[in-house]
């Protein structure tokens, strides 16, 4: 029970029920007041008009005429509804349905609301007293209790409305709480599973983006994806370090060991030492690339994002590679297909990514071919950098694995490189909220970094 009361769903619906009741009462009170005031006023008006008419009768027909008129009226009326009394100058009753001039009502002209005995029942009555010529006094009144049942019904109605509100509030609270609890329960189970190390679990989500819990679940899922990626990233890096640094280190070790065992003449020994230094340089470059990848994958560099001119960046990268392309008889060109294109990002990483793509394209394009770099725009929301070559392209299977660390296509066995270039491009694209996509353009490969929301 305490849990039920503390539950946020219960608190929320209880507050809504209270608010509803408050609104209802705030609405009913002024209404009832206005209604009553209107009734009182019209009653007084009717009584005043009545008195005036009777006074006119008195003026035309004298006291006897009025007495017979009043008697006639009393005979027609339902007792208690209309109160009439005519007295002479001595205060003696001449006609009417009241036994005596009521107590508390003076003979002065005016209106009075008093509790008087009507058929021995104390009743609230509104009366208008009029002074007629010759010391005659006329009292015209009306029983107020005639409208009492309506008032009572009004209050009963209000009470019933409040009761309905209360009941529906409680039922609503129970239903909402049950619905919420079941969803939260499933979320909690998923999160518990994740905490146990099953990182692939995701919270159940629907399609609706206006449902707050759903939005929350989707946000949490995105966070989980990020975490999973990071964890895998760390695992990948340690695997990569273990596996791919071991290979060149083994080579280096055997080279040095052989050198130490065979003790070759100096010329040969120095050549071996130079080769060993080259081995170390290779280890260092792999190491640096891995660290750079890990650094990008943490997303830390996002804090240093600035506005980057992608066109300028591509143009400069092309300019940088043109001499190298010319040597291999490849035409390398920059095509501006987008107009000015800016993105919020890391200048250095984006430059490195574009350079890697160009480097890659040049590596696989045979002499006489061409490589083109272009900035493109697809609609207002998507923009990208495309590097297309006329090389052999990649098979679908190769395309899927191209961004894996240390993956190298069979055809690239003989080319220099460690197989981290495209992983880096992919990581940079993801860091900027974009994607690296490959397409076959027969012949050749079309690699595109697509960014959303580029200005």
């Amino acid at each position, binding site marked *: 029970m305490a849990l039920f009361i503390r539950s946020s769903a219960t608190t929320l619906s209880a507050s809504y029920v209270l608010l509803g009741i408050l609104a209802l009462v705030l609405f009913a009170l002024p209404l009832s007041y206005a209604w009553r005031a209107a009734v009182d006023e019209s009653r007084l008006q009717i009584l005043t008009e009545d008195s005036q008419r009777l006074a006119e009768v008195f003026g035309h027909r004298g006291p006897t005429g009025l007495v017979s008129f009043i008697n006639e009226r009393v005979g027609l009326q339902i007792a208690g509804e209309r109160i009439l009394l005519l007295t002479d100058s001595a205060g003696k009753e001449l006609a009417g349905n009241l036994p005596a001039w009521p107590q508390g009502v003076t003979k002065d002209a005016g209106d009075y609301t008093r509790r008087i005995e009507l058929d021995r029942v104390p009743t609230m009555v509104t009366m208008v007293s009029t002074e007629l010529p010759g010391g005659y006094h006329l009292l015209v009144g009306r029983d107020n209790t005639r409208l009492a049942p309506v008032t009572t019904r009004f209050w009963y109605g209000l009470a019933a409305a409040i009761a309905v509100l209360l009941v529906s509030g409680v039922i609503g609270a129970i239903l909402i709480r049950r619905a919420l609890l079941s969803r939260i329960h499933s979320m909690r189970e998923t999160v518990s599973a994740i905490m146990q190390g099953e990182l692939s679990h995701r919270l159940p989500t629907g399609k609706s983006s206006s449902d707050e819990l759903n939005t929350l679940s989707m946000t949490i899922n995105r966070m989980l994806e990020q975490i999973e990626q990071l964890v895998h990233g760390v695992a990948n890096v340690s695997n990569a370090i273990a596996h791919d640094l071991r290979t060149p280190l083994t080579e280096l070790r055997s080279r040095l060991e052989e050198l130490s065992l065979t003790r070759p003449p100096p010329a040969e020994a120095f050549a071996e030492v130079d080769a060993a230094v080259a081995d170390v340089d290779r280890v260092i470059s792999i190491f640096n690339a891995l660290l750079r990848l890990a650094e990008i994958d943490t997303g830390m560099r996002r804090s240093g994002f600035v506005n980057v001119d992608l066109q300028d960046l591509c143009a400069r990268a092309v300019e940088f*590679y043109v001499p190298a392309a010319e040597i291999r008889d490849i035409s390398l060109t920059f095509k501006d297909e987008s107009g000015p294109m800016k993105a919020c990002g890391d200048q250095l990483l984006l430059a490195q990514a574009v350079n890697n793509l160009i*480097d890659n394209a040049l590596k696989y394009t045979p002499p006489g071919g061409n490589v083109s770099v272009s900035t493109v725009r697809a609609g207002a929301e998507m923009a990208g950098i495309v590097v297309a070559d006329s090389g052999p392209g990649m098979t679908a299977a190769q395309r899927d694995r191209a961004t894996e660390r240390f993956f190298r296509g069979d055809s690239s066995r003989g080319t*220099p490189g460690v197989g981290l270039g495209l992983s880096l491009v992919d990581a940079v694209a993801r860091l900027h909220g974009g994607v690296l996509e490959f397409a076959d353009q027969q012949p050749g490969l079309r690699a595109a970094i697509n960014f959303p929301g580029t200005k």
Partner: protein
Amino acid sequence: MKVLLVEDNERVTRFVTKGLQEAGHTADHADNGRDGLFLAASERYDVIIMDRMLPGNIDGLSLISALRQSGNQTPILVLSALADVDERIKGLRAGGDDYLTKPFAFGELLARLDALGRRTRQDGTVTTLEVADLRMDLLSRKVVRGARQILLQPREFKLLEYLMRHAGQVVTRTMLLENVWDYHFDPQTNVVDVHISKLRQKIEPEPEHSLLRTVRNAGYMLSAE
């Protein structure tokens, strides 16, 4: 050149000191921040090599800040195992003049030291650069070799300007990448070499009068002989 090396690793110290002596420089050494600060403040050096991580209370960067605050303007090369771009920026912001990541090739270190040591002596307001019969006018952006005018692309001009400003010194590929193209990463391929050979074709029609030499295991040097 008189060099101060503040470095706690013995092997690195021996390697650097020996290399510097072979290159004709004198080197003093301190293996902790306090001694380093004392030496840097009491002697005059042409350049200081500063390791970032030092034993004791005072690390490389705070040492640099302390020196700069006391008005010492000796060029400082920061050595560090921290390779992040942010770390590099931190090092330069603290008052370092150049940043080199460990592990490094000695040729790279020496080339950068040369560049730093000479920077103080060079006048920033020169309008013409000359190496043998190669002349560059920085205002009209004209380059002539002897009587013949050489037409260069803007980037080639920048490359040649950098080489000429550092004439007689070894300039490494990394230095060229950083200073001419502003690329603070290793493009893995020999693109810089290609740019150099293209530039060589333009400024040296007759290979026998070569000014731009390749220095093995280090980089390039533009010099009169």
